[in-house]
């Protein structure tokens, strides 16, 4: 895999305060990466560093083979960016806005209708001033400009905030398409659950420091958080006979937490007596739980 973005021990200080400390990672072509962290953890600073809008205090950033702060035309042209809570010039219409950005990127504007359709901006809204747009519509226009000229790297800061569930779904479909075309997509988000099956990799940032980096499975393995097993017995009065600390849930279900190592064993035992079970659900640790785990570990250090 070829790396589109490389940061090497990058640090950024504002005044005396370090916003980003010694962060290194590589983002590859065809990869979707979730950048996760609290507000003020340094996600936006990292994205600005990758865009070359600010220069690192130490370390280096390489974007598509060049220094992004130099502002090379072909580099900037191949990068799509959606700022957090994007805003536009209120007086212009959506179409005029997109035309302006297309001209700056030297992109043919003929496929505007397609782009508006892709991001779900209604045709009647396109020729209205941005002033009249709802937050969700502005976000869609923001996505449209980020997608101009089929970028090779997309940096999306909180892309799904303000989008309703249907549009979120639509949005992630778009991301999948881009990934299939070999684009690098970096999403920063709070909404961890919706990133669950979308991101190939998760980078967790806390107070400017990278505290975890890996696929969800890798992170689960490192964190070795227990899996939750939830069952419903055929006999409502009985309690589970298998070892473990079963707790009764409301509604009559039973739940137990098992370590990854014991999980298979327990499942084997349970499924050997299928008549006792009415239903069986496995819940792997969610990204939320992983995130909390890594943050807790960081705080303990």
């Amino acid at each position, binding site marked *: 895999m070829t790396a589109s973005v490389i940061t090497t021990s990058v640090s950024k200080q504002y005044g005396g305060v370090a916003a980003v400390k010694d962060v290194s990672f590589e983002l590859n072509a065809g990869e979707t990466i979730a950048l996760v962290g609290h507000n003020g953890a340094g996600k936006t600073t990292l994205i*600005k560093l990758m865009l070359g809008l*600010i220069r690192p205090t130490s370390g280096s950033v390489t974007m598509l083979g060049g220094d992004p702060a130099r*502002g090379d035309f072909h580099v900037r042209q191949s990068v799509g960016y959606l700022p957090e809570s*994007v805003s536009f010039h209120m*007086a*212009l219409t959506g179409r005029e806005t997109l035309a302006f950005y297309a001209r*700056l990127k030297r992109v043919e504007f003929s496929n505007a209708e397609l782009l508006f359709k892709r991001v779900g901006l209604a045709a009647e809204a396109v020729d209205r001033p941005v002033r009249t747009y709802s937050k969700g519509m502005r976000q869609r226009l*923001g996505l449209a400009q980020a997608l101009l000229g089929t970028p090779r790297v997309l940096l999306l800061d909180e892309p799904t905030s303000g989008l309703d569930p249907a549009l979120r779904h639509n949005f992630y479909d778009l991301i999948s398409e881009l990934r299939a075309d070999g684009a690098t997509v970096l999403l920063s988000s709070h909404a961890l659950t919706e990133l669950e099956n979308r991101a190939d990799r998760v980078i967790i940032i806390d107070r400017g420091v990278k505290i975890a980096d890996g696929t969800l499975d890798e992170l689960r393995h490192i964190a070795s958080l227990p899996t939750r097993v939830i069952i419903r017995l055929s006999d409502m009065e009985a309690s589970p006979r298998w070892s473990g600390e079963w707790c009764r849930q409301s509604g009559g279900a039973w739940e137990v937490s098992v370590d990854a190592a014991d999980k298979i064993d327990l499942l084997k035992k349970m499924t050997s007596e299928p008549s006792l079970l009415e239903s069986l659900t496995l819940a792997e640790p969610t990204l939320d739980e992983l995130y909390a785990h890594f943050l807790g570990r960081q705080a303990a250090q």
Partner: protein
Amino acid sequence: MNNILTVARKEIQEGRRNRWVLATTLLLAGLALTLTFLGSAPTGNVGVNQLDVVIVSLSSLAIFLLPLIALLLSHDAIVGESERGTLILLLSYPVGRSEIVIGKFLGHLSILAFSTLIGFGAAAVALVASGTVISPASWRAFATMLGASILLGAVFLSIGYLISTLVRERSTAGGVAVGIWLFFVLIYDMALLGGLVAAQGRSVPSLLLDGLLLANPTDAYRLLNLGSGAASTLSGMGGVTAGSSLSAPILTVALLLWAIVPLGIANIVFARREA
């Protein structure tokens, strides 16, 4: 170059949509027409060329109004975009920072030039339409006045851009802009006048006076328009120019420098600023 035009074009588009263009044009035209017809009342139709009277009254109007309009347009140009959040997206595009500054400046200058030409031009058109005969010399003076007015606008746009790149908040930019306007348009001349009165008729070294007049773009503008020709007699500025060696080319160069230097500094400041 392409980017500069793209940015300028967007600025004009926005100005039209915001009614900035319409409002300033109507304001200037309205005042110019009022001055033209009120101004001709005391002089009547005898003796002086009417267009020269218009030049005198329009220049006096322009000295107050154009700097104000220019600062209103420009003080917000960079800091406003930064505060509204549109700047960060723009900077991520393949467009240089100086292209943004110069493009926006040219856009604003076009708006101002358009309003001035149409607004002040309306006064001349009205005179011609009312059957006044205007001499070629007066036409030349009028054209000079239009050019100088646009240049004066450019000066204060440029100063506004410098303010806009230096400060961190829009409200600060607005306050500084008002302060600059008051200083150049009112306080400076009052102080200068006070100084001359305090000198009690002792002759002020002409080099010092020249320097003081060039140090304020509105004074340079005033001298350029009212210092020569029929207008100088009408406005009483002839007395000032008689003791000064400032010719029209020197004044024009001074105004050009006033338009270029603050914008140049704004460019340097903006290039170093972190988004």
